[in-house]
């Protein structure tokens, strides 16, 4: 059963200072409405790309969006900042009206665009549960009947009668999410609330959302930048770009499309000799990420071997060249560094060489990884080039039962995930 049907949805915003010229524009609009003409100030064609200077004072944050959501579906919405994700949620949750098009909804909607909306700092935790619950659309008796459960979920028993301004930010978020999690809407709209809170809480929150959709058959719309949460929670996904619906479908496919399009990370890069990183001694020609069949690709399963090729041109004969490799994750953690010590005494005559380094299977965790490729000398220590975050790869765990994750679907922390040996008990 379709519970949300979005048809030809547009949302237009005014750019710049609101106020100057609004009276004149209002008048123009009013005059055209009176004459029964279209609004001349609305330009359907204007694409919302925040990096280019606008030609019109108005911009389309949403541009001809069409999709439908089935009952019990968990729909992820991904896209860069400014792609229109939050606007879409705002229109869906009636915070602001669309400019044209329509949305048809079946059932009660509760939206969670922010945690703790309307929390009053002077009021106690308990008072705020009532306040926030009522703002989110709960009746007083509903809140009363769930009060203990909410306090328990938030884990703030000791502080229920303390004003929330004395709360730590973590407690604040936990309390706020606890209220929202105990709403019982047919449709729940959630915007990146998981960005805050510790790992334990995030797991609790994701678990709660899974429970809401799987056990209670409710529909969830979920916006996040966290591909891990999206891939774990969502059955299908929308990918928004510059206000338009770029791609939709199965979560895995959409994430793959999104990562290659938006992160600007590619699986291989070639340089022309005039703009190649390097110096008069050595320069980078090409770097690429490959699988064990020497195929260049971006998305890997966690139990795949990943290779990195560094093709460089030596311009002067030398016996002191070492290729190097750095690996970073999406949080910019420098996971490891490696030097090609095997070839360190090799004499390089001018020409083109290819160094290859292999990352073992079952070693890294899910998510985006970025590579830095370099060529150095030791005597004296010189870095001829270090080309960072141009190539990279994404790792996902399709959970075939053979990986470290096993059948566990929750948050799995850690920077790396090697297969360790456990002794038999």
């Amino acid at each position, binding site marked *: 059963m379709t519970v949300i049907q979005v048809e030809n949805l547009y949302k237009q915003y005014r750019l710049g200072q609101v106020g100057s010229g*609004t009276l004149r524009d209002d008048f123009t609009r009013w005059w055209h409405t009176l004459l029964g003409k279209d609004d001349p100030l609305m330009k359907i064609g204007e694409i919302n790309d925040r990096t280019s200077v606008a030609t019109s004072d108005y911009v389309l944050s949403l541009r001809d969006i069409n999709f439908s959501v089935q009952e019990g579906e968990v729909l992820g919405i991904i896209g860069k900042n400014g792609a229109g994700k939050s606007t879409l949620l705002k229109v869906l949750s009636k915070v602001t009206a669309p400019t044209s098009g329509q949305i048809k909804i079946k059932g009660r909607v509760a*939206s969670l665009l922010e945690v703790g909306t309307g929390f009053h700092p002077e009021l106690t935790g308990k008072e705020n549960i009532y306040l926030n619950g009522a703002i989110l*659309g709960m009746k007083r008796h509903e809140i009363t009947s769930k009060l203990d459960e909410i306090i328990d979920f938030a884990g703030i028993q000791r502080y229920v009668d303390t004003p929330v301004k004395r709360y730590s930010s973590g407690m604040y978020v936990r309390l706020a999410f606890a209220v929202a999690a105990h709403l019982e809407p047919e449709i729940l709209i959630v915007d990146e609330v998981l960005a805050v809170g510790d790992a334990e809480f995030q797991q609790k929150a994701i678990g709660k959302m899974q429970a809401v959709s799987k056990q209670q058959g409710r529909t969830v719309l979920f916006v996040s930048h966290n591909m891990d949460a999206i891939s774990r929670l969502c059955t299908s996904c929308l990918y928004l770009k510059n206000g338009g619906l770029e791609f939709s479908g199965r979560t895995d496919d959409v994430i793959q499309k999104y990562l290659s399009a938006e992160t600007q990370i590619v699986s291989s890069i070639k340089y022309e000799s005039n703009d190649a990183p390097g110096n008069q001694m050595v320069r980078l020609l090409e770097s690429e990420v490959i699988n064990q069949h020497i195929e260049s690709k971006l998305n890997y399963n966690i139990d795949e071997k990943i290779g990195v090729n560094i093709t460089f041109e030596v311009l002067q004969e030398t016996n002191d060249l070492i290729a190097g490799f750095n690996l970073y994750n999406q949080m910019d953690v420098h996971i490891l560094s490696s030097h090609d010590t095997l070839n360190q005494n090799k004499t390089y005559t001018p020409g083109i060489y290819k160094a290859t380094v292999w990352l073992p299977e079952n070693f890294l965790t899910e998510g985006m990884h970025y590579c830095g490729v370099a060529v150095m000398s030791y005597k004296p220590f010189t870095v001829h080039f270090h080309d960072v975050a141009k190539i990279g790869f994404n790792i996902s765990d399709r959970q075939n039962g053979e990986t470290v994750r096993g059948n566990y679907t929750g948050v799995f922390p850690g920077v790396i995930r090697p297969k360790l040996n456990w002794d038999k008990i």
Partner: protein
Amino acid sequence: MKETWTEVIQPKKSVFQLNLSEIWNYRDLIWIFVRRDIVSVYKQTVLGPLWFFLGPIFTVFTFVFVFNQIAKISTDNIPAPLFYLAGTTLWNYFQACITGTSSTFISNANIFGKVYFPRLVSPISMVISNLLKFGIQLLMFLCFWFYYLAQGTIHPNAYIALLPLLVLLMGGMALGVGIIISSLTTKYRDLSYFIGFGITLIMYATPVIYPVSAIPEMYKPFVIYNPIAPIIETFRYGFTGSGYFSWSGLAYSSIFTIGVLLIGTLLFNKIERTFMDTV
């Protein structure tokens, strides 16, 4: 098969599509907002709700000193403190309501931008929560009133019974004017500056600190056509027996109140859908 949707979100809804039943569904929220407004006011204060008394008392004694003792403005043979209290009790309610409701969109922009509930809930709860403050001030007025009643200096009459109507009119009018202003301030911020001093100006155009009988003939129309005047005068007439009362004046105030409420709700209803884009 025709599908049944519980809700269809569209760009424009008709201005007359007022969803009063929706506001009724959110009555719990109104109640909780009222509670929040009252409770949060005196948290972390030593005197607590006593502040509701102290403010008006000081104001009234200032009035007695300035307008009665220095400026020698007539109080229609009513003891001066009682005269000013009679004027300010309802006026303060009006003022509190209008300053509160006229900034509805701007002061709630944060909440309104994140969650949907009928926006009218906010100004309505404001008008209700100010009733408590009004009640406390009325109580204080009644203390003085009983004192002077025992002394025999005042002569109340049956028009006292109109009090609930007067409060209703005052609240309704403040709500109506307040939501009109709040709707317009979302785009034209200038109005919020106007309300700051405008409300003081209106007080001087209302018989709060002077009786209607003291107005020179040529200025009388200004006060007579002020829809707040009959409400204040009726209050004073009912409680003290002196002042000016006419059914036609009260009818005029009622029609005005219904008028601004109607215009206000229609305007508010239109603005609330997109105000987030302009505020």
